[in-house]
C-alpha cells in the first residue's frame, strides 16, 4: 500500500470535486462546522449522532451503518474522501470506522479542513442531494479494533501507544485542553505505554509527515518495537485513529489496533493498573 492509496492532496481534491464515483464526506468534532461552509459537494456525517449508538456506548450496528450510508447516497463502489476539522481527528476516526465495516475505497484529504482553509480554497453552504443507494456493509473487521481485556493483557507484551498530549499522559490534564477538565475517570496512563502525541505525526498545517519522518519518530525516537503488535489509544478513540492511520495505512504495519474505549473506559475500570506522574 502506498501513500497515494490512502491520502489525497488538496490540489487533487479541488480537481476532482465533481468526479463520478467520488464522494467527499466531512466529519467534525464541532458538528456545526459543516453548516458554516464545506468543500463544495461534500456530505456531512455526524460522528456523535450517526456513528454512535444513542443508548449504549458502542458503534451503530452493521445494519444501521448500511441504512446510514444508503441515505447519504454513498454506494459500495464509491471512493469516499474524508476530511474534517481538528487536523482530521474525526475524519481519521471515520476512515477507521469505514474500514471496520469493510469499505476499502476510502481516503483521507491530507490536512483536512485546516489546510483547505489556510490555502484559501472555496467553501460552500449548499447541501448536495444524492440519490439513495442500497449499501451493503461487511461484519466488523476486529483485526483493527481492540477491547479492554486485550488492552490489559497487552501491558508489557505489545506496543501500547498513548497518543494524548504529555499533560494528559502524566495525569495533569484529564481531557484535551479545549474541553472542560472535570471528568469522572482517574488521570494517568496504561503502564508500559509509550507517549507519542498524535500531533507529532502531523505538520502544523495538519498534513501528515513523510514516511521517513514517521518511522524515525515511532521507531528511532520513541522505541516502538516493530516485532510486536500495537494498540493505540487516546481519550475516546479519535486521536488514536489518526495514529492508527499513520502506523497501519502509511507505514504499513500489519498488526495495529485502535482501542476506541480508550482512556474514558480504561480510566474508569475497577482494579486495573494505572501509572501517574503528577
Amino acid at each position, binding site marked *: 500500500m502506498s501513500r497515494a492509496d490512502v491520502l489525497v492532496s488538496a490540489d487533487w481534491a479541488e480537481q476532482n470535486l465533481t468526479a463520478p464515483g467520488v464522494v467527499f464526506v466531512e466529519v467534525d468534532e*464541532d458538528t456545526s*462546522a459543516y453548516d458554516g461552509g464545506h468543500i463544495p459537494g461534500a456530505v456531512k456525517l455526524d460522528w456523535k449522532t450517526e456513528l454512535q449508538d444513542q443508548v449504549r456506548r458502542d458503534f451503530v450496528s452493521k445494519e444501521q451503518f448500511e441504512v446510514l450510508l444508503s441515505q447519504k447516497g454513498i454506494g459500495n463502489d464509491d471512493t469516499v474522501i474524508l476530511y474534517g*476539522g*481538528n*487536523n482530521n481527528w474525526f475524519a481519521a476516526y471515520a476512515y477507521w470506522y469505514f474500514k471496520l465495516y469493510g469499505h476499502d475505497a476510502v481516503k483521507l484529504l491530507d490536512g483536512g479542513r*485546516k489546510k483547505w*482553509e*489556510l*490555502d*484559501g480554497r472555496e467553501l460552500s453552504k449548499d447541501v448536495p442531494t444524492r440519490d439513495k443507494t442500497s449499501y451493503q456493509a461487511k461484519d466488523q473487521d476486529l483485526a483493527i479494533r481492540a477491547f479492554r481485556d486485550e488492552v490489559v493483557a497487552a501491558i508489557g507484551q505489545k506496543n501500547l501507544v498513548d497518543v494524548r*498530549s*504529555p*499533560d494528559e499522559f502524566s495525569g*495533569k*490534564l484529564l*481531557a*484535551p*485542553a*479545549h*474541553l*472542560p*477538565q*472535570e471528568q469522572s475517570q482517574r488521570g494517568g496512563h496504561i503502564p508500559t505505554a509509550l507517549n507519542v*502525541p498524535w*500531533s*507529532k505525526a502531523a505538520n*502544523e*498545517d495538519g498534513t501528515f509527515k513523510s514516511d521517513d519522518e514517521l518511522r524515525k519518530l515511532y521507531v528511532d525516537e520513541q522505541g516502538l518495537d516493530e516485532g510486536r503488535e500495537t494498540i493505540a489509544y487516546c481519550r475516546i478513540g479519535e486521536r488514536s485513529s489518526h495514529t492508527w492511520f499513520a502506523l497501519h495505512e502509511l507505514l504499513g504495519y500489519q498488526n495495529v489496533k485502535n482501542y476506541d474505549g480508550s482512556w474514558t473506559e480504561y480510566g474508569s475500570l475497577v482494579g486495573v493498573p494505572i501509572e501517574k506522574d503528577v
Partner: protein
Amino acid sequence: MCGAPEQSPTLPAGIDVEKETVIYGAVTKDDAPVPGAYVRLLDGTGEFTAEVVTSATGDFRFFAAPGDWTLSVLHKDGKVRQDVHASGPGLLPVSLSLQ
C-alpha cells in the same frame, strides 16, 4: 488589564471557574476580530496540547492547568505566538494580534 478582552468568556453550563484554568481571548488583525483562525495551546516544553478555531467574533478558549503555556495562531492572513503563565485556577484573558 491592558489589552484584555472586555467580555468574560462564554462557558458551558456547570463550569466551576474556581477549579478550571481558562485561558481565553480574541484574535484580531488591525483591531478587527479574526474568525476561523487556528489557535494552538503548547505546553511548557513547546509540545502541542490542544487546538481550537476562533468563533465568528474571533474568540478562543482553553481549559488548561496552572503553569507555563504558549499560544500559537495560524491564519491565511498572518500568524502570532505568545507565552502565557497561569498562576492558578481562574480566568486568564489573552489578546492576540496577527502579525
